């Protein structure tokens, strides 16, 4: 548009003015907004679905607990095969040639068999445990995996760990996982997994990784419609609004090619990075920066000005 118009944008406005009380506007806004928020809070409240414990898991879904513990020993759970930042069990996700996950390094070391099962078992008072752990530790890695895998298969087949018939093929695994289940059910496992660094914990990496490896936690999430394919990222427990501003993020998990991609997480992050760059530089993007001219909402916003000036 004309240079003249640009100059108007740049220069200090010397055209007509009208009185405008900014401070009064702010104070009124504060009062109105505070009242509105206070009313919303009183009417709708906020959700507080109690956090889940390993104890609850052990009590409500003992078979799932035992199967998951067995999976940790077999190295077949999500955490056991995760990769960075927890361990080197996998390459991690990639972005084309970029192995960002791997390159960032193992900064939060987690060895699920050791950390979730063997270490806590040192606190078990079950008299069969020391022998079982000694047998486990003395065995070769192949033998350990075989025991755990066979036991996992047997649980799956029986449909319930309690229904699995004793068999030497499972080695010490049933004794170990049963003892771990006791620790969970009586409530001590929750503490054991959080107090390794300091007895005043604020880091829940261990119990949460373990919990999320199992089916119980996942099921609770599904009940609260919080799964990724239920737009879970932006939902809250109950029917409260969650992080609705993450809709774009959530949306991408619903569409191809991301939906079925193994690298969905990293690809979607990359897409969002680009979209946000676009957002930041929107005023410089050709065509997009002309949209406000092409679709003239501004005629509505400034209608008084245009009317008064016959523009």
């Amino acid at each position: 548009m004309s240079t003249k118009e640009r100059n108007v944008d740049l220069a200090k406005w010397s055209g007509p003015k009208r009185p405008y009380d900014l401070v009064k506007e702010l104070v009124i806004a504060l009062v109105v907004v505070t009242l509105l928020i206070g009313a919303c809070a009183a009417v709708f409240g906020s959700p507080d679905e109690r956090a889940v414990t390993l104890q609850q898991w052990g009590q409500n879904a003992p078979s799932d607990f035992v199967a998951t513990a067995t999976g940790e020993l077999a190295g077949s759970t999500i955490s056991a095969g995760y990769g960075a930042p927890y361990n080197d069990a996998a390459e991690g996700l990639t972005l084309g040639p970029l192995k960002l996950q791997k390159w960032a390094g193992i900064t939060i070391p987690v060895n699920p068999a050791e950390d979730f099962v063997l270490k806590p078992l040192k606190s078990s008072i079950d008299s069969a445990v020391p022998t079982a752990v000694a047998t486990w530790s003395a065995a070769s890695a192949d033998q350990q995996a075989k025991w755990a895998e066979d036991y996992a298969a047997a649980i799956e087949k029986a449909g319930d760990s309690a229904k699995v018939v004793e068999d030497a093929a499972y080695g010490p695994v049933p004794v170990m996982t049963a003892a771990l289940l006791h620790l969970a059910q009586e409530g001590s496992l929750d503490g054991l997994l959080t107090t390794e660094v300091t007895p005043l914990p604020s880091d829940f990496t261990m119990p949460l990784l373990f919990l999320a490896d199992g089916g119980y936690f996942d099921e609770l999430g599904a009940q609260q419609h919080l799964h990724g394919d239920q737009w879970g990222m932006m939902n809250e427990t109950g029917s409260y609004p969650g992080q609705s501003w993450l809709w774009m993020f959530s949306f991408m998990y619903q569409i191809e090619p991301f939906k079925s991609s193994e690298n969905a997480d990293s690809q979607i992050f990359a897409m969002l990075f680009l979209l946000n760059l676009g957002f930041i530089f929107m005023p410089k993007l050709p065509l997009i920066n002309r949209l406000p001219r092409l679709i003239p909402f501004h005629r509505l916003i400034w209608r008084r000005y245009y009317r008064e000036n016959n523009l």
Partner: protein
Amino acid sequence: MATMWTTRVRRATIEKIDPQDALPDNQPSYVASWIYVFGVLTLAALAVIIGSGLILTVRGASWWHTSGVGHYVNSVHLWAVELFFVFMVVHLWGKFWMAAWRGRRFATWVTGTFCFLSSLATAFTGYLIQGDFDSQWIATQAKDGLNSVGIGSFMNTLNSGQALLLHVALLPLGVGLIVVWHVILVRKNGVVPPLDAKEIAGGAA
């Protein structure tokens, strides 16, 4: 003789500020639309977020699970955030359709986008530290995304202590500073004139 540092700082700051520009009691006649209120509404909601957040910090992270008053303050904090984002998004779209980046106001737009992005990060850490099932769920779900691009190696969503401290210290400080910068830029540049405005001195034609 080199100029004193103090002198330089004064010249670069206080001496640059015209009190009439900083707190003007009039605005160009075109500043007459409801859309202009949304920036201020966003600010007001932010003030309520900070106020309710401070009350929550005083009594500690788990207070609101056990106290009725605490639960209400938590609800205020939540709804302030929801409204804050609603106001901000209306504000953002308004500024887009007004092409409010014209006339060296690009920096105002950019600081605005950083207001949005830093608020998003702050809200996310807030969800992590509720200390309820939702926190556990979000933490275990979000870790995969962050881990997949290497961020998880530094920001561990499963570490509630880290999320708590980020949420009450660094992140709100960041949001606060960016918002202040954004508003200073708006005041410094004056409100953007309408598209295709003609300056008609001395009154409407």
